[in-house]
């Protein structure tokens, strides 16, 4: 479905420096049973956020009033593991609009882009600077400018890459199906040509 348009975001950042955060941590399988896209934010990082008895874990960033904002910054190789799109929904549903990391798993990146969540890939060095800055000043506001493809922390800027097609989609709030439906005639021909298998 079409998503909110995204151009620039200025926000505080929630840091999660662990590396290799996989989609089972983002949203454990036992919470994948819903049949709609909404409501997954309640169980985002469930097993880090709540203890087995369901009590919030005090130190966890989402439970700690020090941290807030619409941007999540995470360690390298974020979103590995299962292809569950629920991971992107959960992050979006919780209220994040951007995830910054120095590396994203492929499927997660795609899923995020398909759901209006902007994955921003920065260098390891920049990510470290970001974490250090947040350590010193948790209320730091950073800027993510999609049009210029720039992320800025305390005057330090870094360019990030995004595919031009996905960038268009994010800025205009349209999605892949709109585009694919426009190819119906060509696809019909393919369907016939590949019918022997």
């Amino acid at each position, binding site marked *: 479905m079409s998503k909110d348009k995204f151009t620039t975001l200025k926000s505080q950042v929630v840091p999660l420096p662990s590396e290799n955060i996989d989609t089972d941590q983002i949203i454990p399988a036992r919470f994948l049973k819903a049949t709609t896209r909404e409501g997954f934010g309640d169980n985002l990082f469930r097993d880090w956020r709540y203890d087995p008895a369901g009590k919030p874990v005090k130190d966890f960033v989402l439970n700690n009033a020090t941290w807030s904002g619409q941007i999540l910054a995470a360690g390298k190789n974020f979103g590995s593991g299962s292809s569950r*799109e629920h991971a992107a929904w959960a992050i979006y549903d919780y209220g994040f609009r951007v995830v910054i990391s120095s590396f994203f798993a492929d*499927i997660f990146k795609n899923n995020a882009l398909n759901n209006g969540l902007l994955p921003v890939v920065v260098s390891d060095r920049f990510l470290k600077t970001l974490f250090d800055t947040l350590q010193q000043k948790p209320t730091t506001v950073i800027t993510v400018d999609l049009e210029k493809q720039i992320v800025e922390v305390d005057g330090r800027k870094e360019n990030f890459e995004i595919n031009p097609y996905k960038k268009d989609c994010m800025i205009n709030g349209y999605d892949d199906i709109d585009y694919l439906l426009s190819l119906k005639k060509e696809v019909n021909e393919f369907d016939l040509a590949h019918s022997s*298998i």
Partner: protein
Amino acid sequence: MILEPKTIFEKIWDSHVVKRADGYPDALFIDRHFIHEVTSPQAFDGLRKRGIGVFNTKRTTATADHNVPTKDQHLPIKEALSRRQVETLRTNCKDFGIELYDLGHPFQGIVHIIGPELGLTLPGMTIVCGDSHTSTHGAFGNIAFGIGTSEVEQVLGTQCVLQYKAKTMKIEINGTLGKGVVSKDIILYIISKISASGATGYFVEYTGDTIRKLSMEARMTICNMSIEMGARGGLIAPDETTFTYIKGRKFAPQGSAFDQAIEHWKKLRTDDGARYDKVLTFDAADIAPMITYGTNPGMGMKVTDRIPTLAELKEISEQASFKKSLDYMGLEPGTTLLGKAIDYVFIGSCTNARIEDLRLVATMVKGKKKASNVEVWIIPGSKQVEEQARKEGLDKIFETAGFELRSPGCSACLGMNEDKVPPGKYCISTSNRNFEGRQGPQSRTFLASPLSAAAAAITGRVTDVREMVL
């Protein structure tokens, strides 16, 4: 005209591109789409909201696998949310005219197991499913990859998916496998060498004489876990072994159509001189029975090795995650796992729940009894596997050993249905993921081959299968 030499991946990909435009991802035509209860409901919802139907229902096949119990499948599913998800799948398949292999159907099973066994998975195809282990199907020489639910909606509605062509990687394995070493060990070994993100951005082709000698089932195990090293998918060019497996399968081409298909399939190989973006080579003789000790599939070692110490890690930045992972597992750096007592053995999943896997387990446990400290779950990958196992009397062998052959489903592979490993318990598992909580909250997973898992079922401990009489 001299044609540029191409890899098999490029041949299949290029022949499925409906539209390629500058700056846009390719619109890729999809031959076969598998769906299941967990990642499809929101996609059907999307179709309803847009007021469109399924592009070609014959190209889509549904089954219920992730969220199903593996006992008493004839009874309604106990857990309300799971039940609703399976019921939603039923309604959606009915409303949109899609074939569903529901609980109790003779073709029901884990989606990546039923595709190949029904002959729905064929060489040269493009295949997708809202599940990362779709890479399994690549063993037949096709492009198969997992997609998210938005993409499931795309494929249902348009029979296409927008994708960027992945880079290509060749992984070549030559030589003879040692005693007790099976295909699961090959792939766990490769992942331990290149890490859980070592193939991110690539589509892998497995080649080499070791691969050529493997059965289709063993090849599926390898392609299945391509995703565990970050690859988009993995494939193996089809050969006689592939054709023999496919021949006579329910939905495979029959008679002269089959002969024609083979002529086409034989061309599905990488041309001499074709370029890969990356090439890795391994020697089969270096591979031993493997086990993972951490919470990502790259944290694996030979069963006789010891867990690395912090000082032995390549990157200092990895130390914190490594430590966290071992703490979760309740393990110490520098120690060996051999002889460690375990609590559960899970034999199942789309990685290792085909008939050959069950036969392998049976050879190991025949005439023996399971250790009293372990609970053993053996879950066939499909109804057909279950039937075949019963026909061969494997269920009796398991029973004598003290465990029961259950009904098909994903089971303890993902801690979503009733089969969960309790908090803090150790499970030797033939599945593909050892993430925190994957088999249930606080569960601790050691990934291993079916042979190693079977050995552990007997000894109750992490065991080097080479020391068991085979």
